Protein backbone atom coordinates (compact mmCIF):
# COMPACT_ATOMS: atom_id res chain seq x y z
CA UNK A 1 0.00 0.00 0.00
CA UNK A 2 1.39 3.39 -1.01
CA UNK A 3 -1.78 5.55 -1.23
CA UNK A 4 -4.91 6.21 0.79
CA UNK A 5 -5.07 7.54 4.34
CA UNK A 6 -3.02 6.48 7.33
CA UNK A 7 -3.93 7.85 10.74
CA UNK A 8 -1.55 7.69 13.70
CA UNK A 9 -3.13 7.91 17.16
CA UNK A 10 -0.56 9.21 19.66
CA UNK A 11 1.97 11.80 18.54
CA UNK A 12 5.12 10.89 20.40
CA UNK A 13 8.20 8.75 19.83
CA UNK A 14 6.60 5.65 18.30
CA UNK A 15 4.07 7.66 16.31
CA UNK A 16 6.72 9.96 14.87
CA UNK A 17 9.08 7.13 13.94
CA UNK A 18 6.20 5.17 12.43
CA UNK A 19 5.14 8.17 10.37
CA UNK A 20 8.69 8.88 9.22
CA UNK A 21 9.17 5.25 8.22
CA UNK A 22 5.95 5.37 6.21
CA UNK A 23 7.22 8.33 4.21
CA UNK A 24 10.67 6.76 3.85
CA UNK A 25 9.00 3.59 2.63
CA UNK A 26 7.25 5.50 -0.12
CA UNK A 27 3.80 6.16 1.34
CA UNK A 28 2.44 9.02 -0.77
CA UNK A 29 -1.08 9.28 0.62
CA UNK A 30 -2.60 11.33 3.42
CA UNK A 31 -0.88 11.00 6.79
CA UNK A 32 -2.55 12.38 9.92
CA UNK A 33 -1.06 12.40 13.42
CA UNK A 34 -3.46 12.79 16.33
CA UNK A 35 -2.11 13.67 19.76
CA UNK A 36 -3.90 14.61 22.97
CA UNK A 37 -0.98 16.73 24.13
CA UNK A 38 -0.75 20.19 22.56
CA UNK A 39 2.95 19.56 21.84
CA UNK A 40 4.67 18.14 18.81
CA UNK A 41 6.52 14.88 19.59
CA UNK A 42 9.22 15.39 22.19
CA UNK A 43 11.75 13.21 23.94
CA UNK A 44 10.90 11.98 27.46
CA UNK A 45 14.14 10.47 28.86
CA UNK A 46 15.67 13.89 29.71
CA UNK A 47 12.57 14.81 31.75
CA UNK A 48 13.65 12.82 34.81
CA UNK A 49 17.34 13.62 34.33
CA UNK A 50 18.79 16.86 32.95
CA UNK A 51 15.45 18.68 32.97
CA UNK A 52 15.04 18.27 36.73
CA UNK A 53 18.61 19.33 37.41
CA UNK A 54 17.89 22.50 35.43
CA UNK A 55 20.47 21.75 32.71
CA UNK A 56 17.80 21.34 30.01
CA UNK A 57 14.54 23.24 29.68
CA UNK A 58 11.37 21.10 29.93
CA UNK A 59 10.17 22.50 26.61
CA UNK A 60 13.44 21.96 24.77
CA UNK A 61 13.28 18.29 23.84
CA UNK A 62 11.12 18.44 20.70
CA UNK A 63 12.32 15.62 18.49
CA UNK A 64 14.20 16.04 15.23
CA UNK A 65 12.03 15.01 12.30
CA UNK A 66 8.92 16.98 13.30
CA UNK A 67 9.92 19.86 11.04
CA UNK A 68 10.26 17.94 7.80
CA UNK A 69 7.61 15.24 8.21
CA UNK A 70 4.99 15.66 5.51
CA UNK A 71 1.86 15.14 7.61
CA UNK A 72 -1.25 16.79 9.03
CA UNK A 73 -1.16 17.36 12.75
CA UNK A 74 -4.23 17.19 15.02
CA UNK A 75 -2.73 18.15 18.34
CA UNK A 76 -4.49 18.84 21.63
CA UNK A 77 -7.38 16.53 20.86
CA UNK A 78 -7.57 12.94 22.12
CA UNK A 79 -8.79 9.97 20.16
CA UNK A 80 -11.94 8.99 22.03
CA UNK A 81 -13.07 5.88 20.21
CA UNK A 82 -12.68 3.55 17.30
CA UNK A 83 -15.24 2.48 14.72
CA UNK A 84 -13.56 -0.68 13.50
CA UNK A 85 -16.28 -1.77 11.10
CA UNK A 86 -16.42 1.72 9.58
CA UNK A 87 -12.61 2.10 9.66
CA UNK A 88 -12.66 5.48 11.38
CA UNK A 89 -10.98 7.06 14.38
CA UNK A 90 -13.31 9.17 16.51
CA UNK A 91 -11.86 12.25 18.13
CA UNK A 92 -13.08 13.85 21.34
CA UNK A 93 -14.11 17.00 19.46
CA UNK A 94 -16.53 14.96 17.36
CA UNK A 95 -14.31 14.65 14.29
CA UNK A 96 -14.46 11.34 12.45
CA UNK A 97 -11.22 10.43 10.70
CA UNK A 98 -11.67 7.61 8.18
CA UNK A 99 -8.52 5.57 7.58
CA UNK A 100 -7.18 2.76 5.43
CA UNK A 101 -4.60 1.95 8.09
CA UNK A 102 -4.37 3.06 11.71
CA UNK A 103 -1.26 3.05 13.89
CA UNK A 104 -2.06 3.07 17.59
CA UNK A 105 0.82 4.63 19.52
CA UNK A 106 -0.90 6.10 22.57
CA UNK A 107 1.85 4.94 24.91
CA UNK A 108 1.44 4.89 28.65
CA UNK A 109 0.86 7.31 31.50
CA UNK A 110 2.17 7.43 35.04
CA UNK A 111 0.27 5.19 37.42
CA UNK A 112 -1.44 7.64 39.75
CA UNK A 113 -1.46 7.43 43.55
CA UNK A 114 -4.52 5.24 44.16
CA UNK A 115 -6.29 7.52 46.66
CA UNK A 116 -7.63 10.22 44.34
CA UNK A 117 -8.20 12.84 47.06
CA UNK A 118 -4.63 12.42 48.30
CA UNK A 119 -3.27 12.46 44.74
CA UNK A 120 -4.92 15.86 44.26
CA UNK A 121 -3.06 17.48 47.17
CA UNK A 122 -0.84 20.24 45.94
CA UNK A 123 2.79 19.16 46.00
CA UNK A 124 1.98 15.61 44.83
CA UNK A 125 3.46 14.97 41.38
CA UNK A 126 3.72 12.27 38.75
CA UNK A 127 6.15 12.42 35.82
CA UNK A 128 5.37 11.41 32.28
CA UNK A 129 5.14 14.49 30.09
CA UNK A 130 6.97 17.77 29.68
CA UNK A 131 4.23 19.67 31.52
CA UNK A 132 4.67 17.30 34.49
CA UNK A 133 8.42 17.92 34.38
CA UNK A 134 7.93 21.70 34.26
CA UNK A 135 5.55 21.54 37.25
CA UNK A 136 7.93 19.33 39.20
CA UNK A 137 10.90 21.56 38.37
CA UNK A 138 8.92 24.59 39.58
CA UNK A 139 8.10 22.75 42.81
CA UNK A 140 11.78 21.95 43.31
CA UNK A 141 12.77 25.57 42.63
CA UNK A 142 10.77 26.49 45.75
CA UNK A 143 13.37 24.44 47.72
CA UNK A 144 11.08 22.01 49.57
CA UNK A 145 12.28 20.88 52.99
CA UNK A 146 12.15 17.22 51.96
CA UNK A 147 11.10 15.40 48.80
CA UNK A 148 9.50 11.98 49.17
CA UNK A 149 9.62 9.60 46.22
CA UNK A 150 7.20 6.70 46.15
CA UNK A 151 8.79 3.90 44.15
CA UNK A 152 12.44 2.99 43.57
CA UNK A 153 12.15 1.91 39.94
CA UNK A 154 14.09 3.58 37.13
CA UNK A 155 12.08 6.82 37.13
CA UNK A 156 12.05 7.04 40.93
CA UNK A 157 15.82 6.50 41.00
CA UNK A 158 16.52 9.05 38.27
CA UNK A 159 14.30 11.63 39.95
CA UNK A 160 16.00 10.97 43.30
CA UNK A 161 19.40 11.38 41.66
CA UNK A 162 18.44 14.68 39.99
CA UNK A 163 16.99 16.05 43.21
CA UNK A 164 20.09 15.09 45.21
CA UNK A 165 22.11 16.93 42.56
CA UNK A 166 20.09 20.02 43.52
CA UNK A 167 21.14 19.46 47.12
CA UNK A 168 17.63 18.80 48.42
CA UNK A 169 16.86 16.16 51.07
CA UNK A 170 15.24 13.07 49.51
CA UNK A 171 13.53 10.01 50.97
CA UNK A 172 12.73 7.04 48.72
CA UNK A 173 10.19 4.44 49.85
CA UNK A 174 9.61 1.13 48.08
CA UNK A 175 8.04 -2.13 49.28
CA UNK A 176 10.78 -4.18 47.57
CA UNK A 177 13.90 -5.02 49.59
CA UNK A 178 16.17 -2.98 47.26
CA UNK A 179 15.88 -0.26 44.61
CA UNK A 180 15.38 -1.48 41.02
CA UNK A 181 14.75 -4.97 42.44
CA UNK A 182 11.73 -5.53 40.23
CA UNK A 183 13.74 -4.91 37.08
CA UNK A 184 17.27 -5.98 37.96
CA UNK A 185 16.87 -8.16 41.03
CA UNK A 186 18.17 -7.76 44.56
CA UNK A 187 21.81 -8.44 43.72
CA UNK A 188 22.16 -5.36 41.50
CA UNK A 189 19.56 -3.60 43.63
CA UNK A 190 21.81 -3.98 46.65
CA UNK A 191 24.62 -2.29 44.77
CA UNK A 192 22.27 0.54 43.77
CA UNK A 193 21.12 0.93 47.37
CA UNK A 194 24.72 1.55 48.41
CA UNK A 195 25.12 4.18 45.70
CA UNK A 196 21.91 5.93 46.63
CA UNK A 197 22.78 6.04 50.30
CA UNK A 198 26.31 7.26 49.56
CA UNK A 199 24.68 10.10 47.62
CA UNK A 200 22.69 11.07 50.68
CA UNK A 201 19.33 9.49 49.87
CA UNK A 202 17.29 8.39 52.88
CA UNK A 203 16.35 4.99 51.44
CA UNK A 204 13.49 3.03 52.98
CA UNK A 205 13.33 -0.36 51.28
CA UNK A 206 10.69 -2.80 52.41
CA UNK A 207 8.39 0.05 53.42
CA UNK A 208 4.98 0.97 52.14
CA UNK A 209 3.23 4.33 52.25
CA UNK A 210 -0.36 3.87 53.37
CA UNK A 211 -1.60 7.45 53.30
CA UNK A 212 -0.62 10.96 52.31
CA UNK A 213 -1.66 13.76 54.62
CA UNK A 214 -2.40 17.35 53.65
CA UNK A 215 -2.25 20.50 55.73
CA UNK A 216 -5.37 22.66 56.14
CA UNK A 217 -4.66 24.42 52.85
CA UNK A 218 -4.67 21.29 50.69
CA UNK A 219 -0.88 20.94 50.48
CA UNK A 220 0.83 17.68 51.18
CA UNK A 221 2.79 17.69 54.45
CA UNK A 222 3.48 14.07 55.38
CA UNK A 223 3.22 10.42 54.43
CA UNK A 224 2.19 7.70 56.85
CA UNK A 225 3.85 4.32 56.50
CA UNK A 226 1.95 1.06 56.79
CA UNK A 227 4.12 0.12 59.79
CA UNK A 228 3.12 3.30 61.62
CA UNK A 229 6.04 5.63 60.85
CA UNK A 230 5.64 9.13 59.43
CA UNK A 231 7.78 10.97 56.88
CA UNK A 232 7.36 14.72 56.69
CA UNK A 233 7.67 15.96 53.11
CA UNK A 234 6.29 18.97 51.30
CA UNK A 235 6.83 17.53 47.85
CA UNK A 236 5.93 13.98 46.82
CA UNK A 237 6.75 12.26 43.53
CA UNK A 238 4.60 9.22 42.78
CA UNK A 239 6.79 6.90 40.67
CA UNK A 240 4.78 3.68 40.73
CA UNK A 241 5.23 2.64 37.11
CA UNK A 242 3.01 3.13 34.11
CA UNK A 243 -0.38 2.09 32.79
CA UNK A 244 -1.03 1.84 29.07
CA UNK A 245 -3.35 4.35 27.40
CA UNK A 246 -5.98 1.94 26.13
CA UNK A 247 -9.16 3.12 27.91
CA UNK A 248 -10.25 4.91 24.74
CA UNK A 249 -10.37 1.51 22.96
CA UNK A 250 -13.09 0.19 25.28
CA UNK A 251 -15.89 -1.33 23.25
CA UNK A 252 -13.80 -1.57 20.08
CA UNK A 253 -13.50 -5.34 20.34
CA UNK A 254 -9.70 -5.16 20.43
CA UNK A 255 -7.82 -7.07 23.11
CA UNK A 256 -6.66 -4.20 25.30
CA UNK A 257 -6.30 -3.45 29.00
CA UNK A 258 -4.04 -1.47 31.33
CA UNK A 259 -1.17 -3.79 30.40
CA UNK A 260 -1.32 -2.95 26.70
CA UNK A 261 -3.00 -3.55 23.36
CA UNK A 262 -2.22 -7.06 22.17
CA UNK A 263 -0.74 -7.39 18.73
CA UNK A 264 0.98 -10.02 16.64
CA UNK A 265 4.58 -10.10 15.45
CA UNK A 266 3.70 -7.86 12.50
CA UNK A 267 2.30 -5.27 14.96
CA UNK A 268 -1.30 -5.97 13.90
CA UNK A 269 -3.77 -5.37 16.72
CA UNK A 270 -5.59 -8.49 17.90
CA UNK A 271 -9.31 -8.65 18.53
CA UNK A 272 -10.77 -10.31 21.59
CA UNK A 273 -10.75 -13.66 19.79
CA UNK A 274 -7.03 -13.23 19.06
CA UNK A 275 -7.46 -12.53 15.34
CA UNK A 276 -5.31 -9.80 13.78
CA UNK A 277 -7.07 -6.76 12.38
CA UNK A 278 -5.58 -6.22 8.92
CA UNK A 279 -5.90 -2.44 9.13
CA UNK A 280 -4.95 -1.62 12.72
CA UNK A 281 -1.40 -1.69 14.07
CA UNK A 282 0.25 -0.85 17.37
CA UNK A 283 3.75 0.22 18.39
CA UNK A 284 5.67 1.57 21.36
CA UNK A 285 4.81 1.43 25.03
CA UNK A 286 1.14 0.64 24.30
CA UNK A 287 1.91 -2.51 22.29
CA UNK A 288 1.97 -5.95 23.90
CA UNK A 289 3.61 -8.31 21.45
CA UNK A 290 4.92 -11.88 21.41
CA UNK A 291 8.70 -11.79 21.67
CA UNK A 292 10.24 -14.67 19.69
CA UNK A 293 13.38 -14.65 21.86
CA UNK A 294 11.33 -15.24 24.98
CA UNK A 295 9.15 -18.10 23.83
CA UNK A 296 6.56 -15.85 22.23
CA UNK A 297 5.55 -14.58 25.66
CA UNK A 298 3.57 -11.33 25.29
CA UNK A 299 5.65 -8.40 26.50
CA UNK A 300 4.95 -4.69 26.70
CA UNK A 301 8.11 -2.63 27.02
CA UNK A 302 8.73 0.87 28.25
CA UNK A 303 11.90 1.42 26.29
CA UNK A 304 12.83 4.31 24.04
CA UNK A 305 14.56 2.01 21.56
CA UNK A 306 11.49 -0.19 21.28
CA UNK A 307 9.25 2.75 20.41
CA UNK A 308 11.68 3.74 17.65
CA UNK A 309 12.16 0.27 16.18
CA UNK A 310 8.60 -0.96 16.56
CA UNK A 311 7.15 2.20 15.02
CA UNK A 312 9.29 1.53 11.97
CA UNK A 313 8.37 -2.17 11.94
CA UNK A 314 4.65 -1.38 12.00
CA UNK A 315 5.16 1.00 9.09
CA UNK A 316 6.86 -1.72 7.08
CA UNK A 317 4.07 -4.16 7.82
CA UNK A 318 1.49 -1.57 6.77
CA UNK A 319 3.19 -0.82 3.48
CA UNK A 320 4.50 -4.21 2.42
CA UNK A 321 2.32 -6.63 4.35
CA UNK A 322 2.96 -8.77 7.42
CA UNK A 323 4.92 -11.49 5.60
CA UNK A 324 7.39 -9.07 4.07
CA UNK A 325 7.88 -7.32 7.42
CA UNK A 326 8.36 -10.57 9.31
CA UNK A 327 8.05 -10.95 13.07
CA UNK A 328 9.30 -8.05 15.17
CA UNK A 329 12.29 -9.43 17.07
CA UNK A 330 14.28 -6.38 18.17
CA UNK A 331 16.41 -7.25 21.18
CA UNK A 332 15.01 -5.24 24.10
CA UNK A 333 17.49 -2.55 25.15
CA UNK A 334 17.40 0.46 27.41
CA UNK A 335 19.60 2.81 29.39
CA UNK A 336 19.17 4.74 32.58
CA UNK A 337 21.51 7.21 34.21
CA UNK A 338 21.44 7.95 37.90
CA UNK A 339 23.88 8.65 40.73
CA UNK A 340 26.73 8.99 38.27
CA UNK A 341 26.08 5.53 36.83
CA UNK A 342 25.23 4.70 33.26
CA UNK A 343 23.08 1.56 33.36
CA UNK A 344 22.54 -0.22 30.06
CA UNK A 345 20.56 -3.36 29.53
CA UNK A 346 20.06 -5.90 26.74
CA UNK A 347 17.42 -8.62 26.78
CA UNK A 348 14.75 -9.22 29.41
CA UNK A 349 15.80 -9.97 32.98
CA UNK A 350 12.31 -11.02 34.10
CA UNK A 351 12.16 -14.77 34.67
CA UNK A 352 15.91 -15.05 35.25
CA UNK A 353 16.85 -17.70 37.81
CA UNK A 354 20.51 -16.70 38.16
CA UNK A 355 22.82 -13.75 37.75
CA UNK A 356 26.62 -13.66 37.51
CA UNK A 357 28.98 -10.69 37.55
CA UNK A 358 31.21 -11.69 34.65
CA UNK A 359 33.32 -8.58 34.08
CA UNK A 360 34.49 -5.81 36.36
CA UNK A 361 33.58 -5.53 40.00
CA UNK A 362 30.76 -3.74 41.82
CA UNK A 363 33.35 -2.49 44.33
CA UNK A 364 34.96 -0.43 41.58
CA UNK A 365 31.58 0.77 40.32
CA UNK A 366 32.14 -0.76 36.89
CA UNK A 367 30.81 -4.20 36.05
CA UNK A 368 28.71 -6.33 33.77
CA UNK A 369 26.11 -8.80 34.99
CA UNK A 370 24.67 -11.63 32.90
CA UNK A 371 21.27 -13.12 33.67
CA UNK A 372 20.42 -16.74 32.95
CA UNK A 373 17.45 -19.01 32.97
CA UNK A 374 17.67 -22.77 32.96
CA UNK A 375 21.29 -22.64 31.84
CA UNK A 376 20.75 -20.15 29.00
CA UNK A 377 21.83 -16.54 28.72
CA UNK A 378 18.79 -14.23 28.58
CA UNK A 379 19.96 -10.73 29.46
CA UNK A 380 22.95 -8.58 30.36
CA UNK A 381 23.24 -5.35 32.32
CA UNK A 382 26.26 -3.05 32.20
CA UNK A 383 26.96 -0.50 34.92
CA UNK A 384 29.43 2.15 33.72
CA UNK A 385 30.60 -0.51 31.29
CA UNK A 386 28.57 0.25 28.18
CA UNK A 387 31.32 -0.80 25.81
CA UNK A 388 31.32 -4.34 27.20
CA UNK A 389 27.64 -4.80 26.49
CA UNK A 390 27.50 -5.32 22.69
CA UNK A 391 29.55 -8.53 23.08
CA UNK A 392 26.55 -10.09 24.85
CA UNK A 393 24.04 -9.42 22.11
CA UNK A 394 24.82 -12.62 20.22
CA UNK A 395 24.88 -14.86 23.33
CA UNK A 396 21.45 -13.50 24.32
CA UNK A 397 20.02 -13.94 20.83
CA UNK A 398 21.45 -17.46 20.63
CA UNK A 399 20.52 -18.43 24.19
CA UNK A 400 24.18 -19.32 24.76
CA UNK A 401 25.02 -21.49 27.78
CA UNK A 402 24.89 -19.73 31.14
CA UNK A 403 27.07 -18.87 32.92
CA UNK A 404 29.14 -17.73 29.94
CA UNK A 405 32.77 -18.80 29.91
CA UNK A 406 34.83 -15.64 29.96
CA UNK A 407 38.09 -16.54 31.66
CA UNK A 408 39.86 -13.17 31.57
CA UNK A 409 42.66 -12.95 34.14
CA UNK A 410 41.23 -9.76 35.65
CA UNK A 411 37.77 -11.19 35.95
CA UNK A 412 36.04 -12.39 39.07
CA UNK A 413 34.86 -15.96 39.14
CA UNK A 414 31.40 -15.80 37.62
CA UNK A 415 29.70 -17.89 40.28
CA UNK A 416 26.00 -17.51 39.54
CA UNK A 417 23.66 -16.59 42.38
CA UNK A 418 19.86 -16.16 42.42
CA UNK A 419 19.12 -12.67 41.07
CA UNK A 420 16.47 -11.91 43.69
CA UNK A 421 13.76 -11.02 41.22
CA UNK A 422 10.22 -10.98 42.62
CA UNK A 423 9.01 -13.41 39.92
CA UNK A 424 11.83 -15.86 40.57
CA UNK A 425 11.09 -15.70 44.30
CA UNK A 426 7.50 -16.70 43.68
CA UNK A 427 8.53 -19.55 41.38
Amino acid at each position, binding site marked *: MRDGTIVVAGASLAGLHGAEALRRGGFAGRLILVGDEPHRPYDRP*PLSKHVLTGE*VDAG*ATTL*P*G*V*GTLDAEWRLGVPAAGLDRAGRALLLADGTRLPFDRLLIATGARARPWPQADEARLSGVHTLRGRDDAAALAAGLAARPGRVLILGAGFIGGEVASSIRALGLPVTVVDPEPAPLARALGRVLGGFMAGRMEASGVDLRPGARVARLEGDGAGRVRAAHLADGGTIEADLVVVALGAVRNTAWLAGSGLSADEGGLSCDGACRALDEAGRPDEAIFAAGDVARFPHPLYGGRPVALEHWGNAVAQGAHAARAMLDGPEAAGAYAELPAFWSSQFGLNIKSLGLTEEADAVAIVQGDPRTGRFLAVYGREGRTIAAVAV*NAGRWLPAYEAPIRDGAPFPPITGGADQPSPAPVPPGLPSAQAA
Partner: protein
Amino acid sequence: MRVVVDLNRCQAYAQCCYAAPERFVLQGDEILAYDPAPPAAERAAIDRAVQACPVRAIRVEHDGPAERAA
Protein backbone atom coordinates in the same frame (compact mmCIF):
# COMPACT_ATOMS: atom_id res chain seq x y z
CA MET B 1 17.76 23.16 15.91
CA ARG B 2 16.62 19.85 17.36
CA VAL B 3 19.06 17.20 18.53
CA VAL B 4 18.54 13.73 19.95
CA VAL B 5 21.10 11.10 20.82
CA ASP B 6 20.29 7.40 20.74
CA LEU B 7 21.79 6.56 24.12
CA ASN B 8 21.40 2.84 23.54
CA ARG B 9 23.82 3.22 20.69
CA CYS B 10 26.11 5.85 22.26
CA GLN B 11 29.31 4.31 23.60
CA ALA B 12 30.58 7.44 25.34
CA TYR B 13 33.38 7.93 22.85
CA ALA B 14 33.15 11.68 23.56
CA GLN B 15 33.95 12.65 19.96
CA CYS B 16 30.87 14.89 20.00
CA CYS B 17 32.21 16.58 23.13
CA TYR B 18 35.38 17.60 21.29
CA ALA B 19 33.45 18.74 18.22
CA ALA B 20 30.85 20.82 20.09
CA PRO B 21 32.03 21.21 23.68
CA GLU B 22 29.33 23.76 24.48
CA ARG B 23 26.55 21.30 23.66
CA PHE B 24 27.81 17.81 24.57
CA VAL B 25 29.52 16.84 27.83
CA LEU B 26 30.32 13.56 29.49
CA GLN B 27 29.31 13.46 33.15
CA GLY B 28 31.05 10.87 35.27
CA ASP B 29 32.51 8.02 33.26
CA GLU B 30 29.94 7.66 30.54
CA ILE B 31 26.77 9.70 31.01
CA LEU B 32 26.32 11.94 27.99
CA ALA B 33 24.52 15.22 28.64
CA TYR B 34 23.59 17.28 25.60
CA ASP B 35 21.59 20.29 24.59
CA PRO B 36 18.54 19.09 22.63
CA ALA B 37 17.86 22.58 21.28
CA PRO B 38 21.13 24.30 20.37
CA PRO B 39 21.03 27.78 18.82
CA ALA B 40 21.14 27.99 15.02
CA ALA B 41 24.50 29.76 15.23
CA GLU B 42 26.08 26.47 16.38
CA ARG B 43 25.09 24.64 13.25
CA ALA B 44 28.63 23.99 12.07
CA ALA B 45 29.76 22.62 15.43
CA ILE B 46 26.70 20.36 15.74
CA ASP B 47 27.21 19.05 12.21
CA ARG B 48 30.80 18.28 13.13
CA ALA B 49 29.60 16.36 16.18
CA VAL B 50 27.15 14.32 14.09
CA GLN B 51 29.94 13.44 11.68
CA ALA B 52 32.44 12.70 14.43
CA CYS B 53 30.26 10.19 16.30
CA PRO B 54 31.75 6.77 15.52
CA VAL B 55 28.46 4.96 16.14
CA ARG B 56 26.17 7.46 14.37
CA ALA B 57 24.11 8.02 17.49
CA ILE B 58 23.35 11.73 16.99
CA ARG B 59 20.45 13.00 14.94
CA VAL B 60 19.95 16.67 14.14
CA GLU B 61 17.23 18.60 12.37
CA HIS B 62 17.98 22.18 11.40
CA ASP B 63 15.37 24.89 11.70
CA GLY B 64 13.06 25.36 8.74
CA PRO B 65 12.62 28.79 7.11
CA ALA B 66 9.67 29.68 9.39
CA GLU B 67 11.66 28.89 12.54
CA ARG B 68 14.65 30.84 11.32
CA ALA B 69 12.43 33.87 10.75
CA ALA B 70 10.88 33.59 14.22
